[in-house]
């Protein structure tokens, strides 16, 4: 790939250049170290250590990964892979980030769901305890996002209405997305005057 992002790559002479195989290894390691979440943080540390992306380039990829549909960590892997090594890099990065967890999840699932008569009592209790903690994990992930959302002009209202529509009223997501996105685009439509942000 002849990318114009060359300056960041010329900064260093020690670390090897990104290749599809190296990306696979990087994201495989990120997945292993990121048990319990925090994958973006681990990704940032890994690409920084190899000097493959500047902080600005990483921030851009991270924002985009949040804005494209789908799970963040996998989107981020696809974006960084594509950016550094094109299509093949995207493929190996996604495989690398998914493979460890996929193997583990399939193993655990095949065992636990295959048990006759359902899960044994203590395992069921343990999973319920873990589910409560998982709720805590989810809240810690949601609050920073909510803070960013509330900082956007009109964001608090859009956020609250989305929460009500999806969480309380259980409306299907696509119509809610269309309404909220239209409202947001009207609020934030680009103006010719330069005075606002």
């Amino acid at each position, binding site marked *: 790939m002849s990318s114009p992002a060359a300056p960041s790559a010329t900064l260093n002479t020690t670390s090897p250049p990104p290749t599809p195989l190296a990306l696979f290894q990087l994201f495989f390691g990120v997945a292993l170290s990121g048990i319990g979440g925090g994958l973006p943080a681990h990704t940032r540390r890994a690409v920084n250590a190899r000097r493959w992306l500047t902080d600005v380039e990483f921030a851009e990829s991270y924002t985009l990964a949040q804005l494209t549909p789908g799970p963040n960590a996998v989107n981020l892997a696809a974006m960084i892979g594509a950016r550094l090594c094109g299509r093949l890099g995207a493929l190996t990065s996604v495989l690398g980030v998914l493979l460890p967890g*996929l193997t583990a999840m399939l193993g655990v699932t095949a065992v636990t769901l295959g048990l006759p008569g359902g899960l044994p009592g203590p395992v069921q209790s343990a999973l319920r305890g873990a589910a409560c903690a998982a*709720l805590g994990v989810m809240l810690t992930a949601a609050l920073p996002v909510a803070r960013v959302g509330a900082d956007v002009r009109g964001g608090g209202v859009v956020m609250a209405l989305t929460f009500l529509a999806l969480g309380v009223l259980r409306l299907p997501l696509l119509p809610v997305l269309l309404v909220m996105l239209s409202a947001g685009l009207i609020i934030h439509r680009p103006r010719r005057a330069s005075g606002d942000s």
Partner: protein
Amino acid sequence: MTSADPELFWALLYEFTRLGLISFGGANIAEMERVLVGQRGWIDAQTLANGFALGQVMPGPNMLAVTHYGFAVGGWAGAGAATLGFYGPTALISAAVALLWRRHSAHPWVSAFRDALLPFGAGVLLAGALVLGQGSVKGWPDLLLAMVAFVLLWRTRLNAAVVVVSAAAAGALLGL
């Protein structure tokens, strides 16, 4: 495992592709519950919560729960359909966007789009937390455990997996 039902395979592939494409900034638990538990009746609320908890202690992305759900519905083939549908198309889109972004990032409508989408994504996440809480919190001990986990994660630098595994041990001891 009963995995030789092509109709079920395609239904799973379709639903999980859709679920992947409409989740922004994280898990879209509210929509998953509506479709998988309510509309299709494929899994129950307990399986939804169990899978989510398992996803938290697995290496890699937290939403590997979809693999668990797919397996619960259609065995190995179901797990494959759910995983492929959920992660495949969205990863393709991300890669394509990454390749396009640099050319168009200066366009004013791009930043308008970003500002419009951010609060929506936050609302989706909060709704997901509510739905998940209704599935897993059924009494005061559950609520207390969730609050303790939240405070520990929010205030300390403990690894999330450590907190989740400890909560699992607490759950087994208390017989939740």
